[in-house]
């Protein structure tokens, strides 16, 4: 493929701070060591440079982006660049007035995370009592005439509730429902024994989602993201390394995916030191797994290599210790037995959870 890489989406992780402590959080385990080093002007410069590179979609995420009191200025600046701006939020620290202000400044879409269909289930996953609050925020979004995405991360404790999740999203008049199965990186890998579902659970939930997608066509988009562990072929992680996405962390690191800095031996540049354009084109970290030259067999000669781009480098590293290995999620990977063993574990009784905390970097 000779197609020029073009980033369409900037994932702006404006802070790692968050009132929730979800057991599957995708932030790095040592998140508390990273401050919010990028100031308002830094972020506005990052947005401008991203737009110059071709970015048209901006995800304001974290952590909880509402914890930044300059969020209004960031939304205003993004809209001035004609970026489609999506706020990805827990909803917890929001007021209706602030939401109305963000709408006026040009916010395009609000994505509210919901952990389960009951207050107790939600609290168990997020370590925070916030279920009713989230529903209220979702109603504000629609009440203000804004589009609403409801995002629910799925795992063994809530997969059997998917029909109720869909009904809840319908009652909120959501425009889009993301049923995203947990991907086992970050905190989710720590908690994999508790979170990984059985194949039976997953198949049943997928069928419920499929029927809802047909029934709700044109009204609510229903997305069901299968977990790699049951997919047999790896996911096209980030649509390929350094191909479509730019991620900028709260401390300014520019990454091809939100966990790339957990890979050893790669160097990534900071948006305070170099322009996004230079980093996108030239930084060693972005070049490391772009294209096909890095691929081992069986990827290198696999006809799917232009579809899955070799899968997830972070998963390869965190499961095998080698970031250049074939993604173990692939049934052709020499290390696929690691995935099969995890599936076996899923048949055993569940284990205790570890909540995201600031001291976990010292060893959980």
């Amino acid at each position, binding site marked *: 493929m000779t197609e020029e890489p073009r980033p369409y*989406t900037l994932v702006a992780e404006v802070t790692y701070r968050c009132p929730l402590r979800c057991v599957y959080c995708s932030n790095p385990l040592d998140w508390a060591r990273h401050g919010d080093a990028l100031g308002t002007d830094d972020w506005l410069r990052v947005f401008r440079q991203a737009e110059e590179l071709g970015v*048209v979609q901006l995800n304001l995420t974290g952590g909880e982006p509402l914890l930044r009191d300059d969020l209004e200025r960031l939304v205003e600046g993004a809209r001035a660049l004609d970026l489609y701006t999506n706020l990805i939020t827990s909803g917890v620290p929001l007021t209706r007035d602030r939401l109305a202000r963000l709408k006026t400044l040009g916010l395009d879409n609000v994505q509210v995370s919901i952990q389960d269909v009951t207050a107790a289930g939600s609290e168990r996953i997020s370590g925070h009592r916030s279920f009713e609050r989230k529903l209220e925020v979702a109603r504000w979004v629609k009440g203000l005439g804004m*589009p609403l995405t409801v995002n629910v991360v799925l795992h063994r404790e809530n997969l059997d509730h998917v029909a109720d999740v869909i009904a809840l999203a319908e009652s909120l008049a959501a*425009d889009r429902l993301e049923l995203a199965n947990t991907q086992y990186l970050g905190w989710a890998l720590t908690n994999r024994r508790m979170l990984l579902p059985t194949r039976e659970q997953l198949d049943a939930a997928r069928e419920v989602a499929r029927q809802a997608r047909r029934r709700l066509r*044109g009204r*609510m988009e229903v997305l069901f993201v299968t977990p790699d562990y049951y997919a047999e072929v790896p996911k096209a992680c980030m649509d390929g390394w350094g191909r479509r996405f730019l991620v900028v962390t709260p401390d300014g690191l520019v990454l091809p995916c939100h966990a790339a800095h957990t890979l050893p031996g790669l160097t990534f540049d900071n948006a305070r030191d170099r322009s996004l354009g230079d980093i996108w084109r030239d930084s060693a970290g972005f070049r490391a797994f772009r294209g096909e030259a890095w691929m081992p067999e069986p990827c290198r000669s696999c006809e799917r290599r232009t579809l899955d781009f070799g899968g997830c480098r972070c998963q390869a590293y965190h499961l095998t210790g080698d970031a250049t290995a074939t993604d173990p999620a692939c049934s052709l990977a020499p290390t696929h037995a690691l995935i099969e063993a995890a599936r076996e574990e899923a048949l055993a009784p569940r284990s205790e959870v570890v909540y995201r905390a600031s001291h976990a970097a010292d060893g959980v």
Partner: protein
Amino acid sequence: MSEPRAITSESRPIVAPKARLRWDARTSRHLLLYPERGLILNPTAADVIQLCTGEHTVGEIVERLAAKYAQEPRETVEREVLTFLANMADRGLIHERHD
């Protein structure tokens, strides 16, 4: 929420609140952006979307397009517009205006 109705020549389509059109200088195309996604529109599709304001019926949109692309038979234009709009409605990117 009411059931979506099939798009007919009397429908008055309007772009959904979640979708927004913007010009893309790199491809010299309009993009229809919506959450996490975007469509690169060809010039005809962009013409149609720009007329989806809730004011014009599909019939009127077909008339405008047929006049602009006079080399195409009107029936072809009508078929293409209806197919495109049905596809957009399935994706929830246009709705029918409800009075």
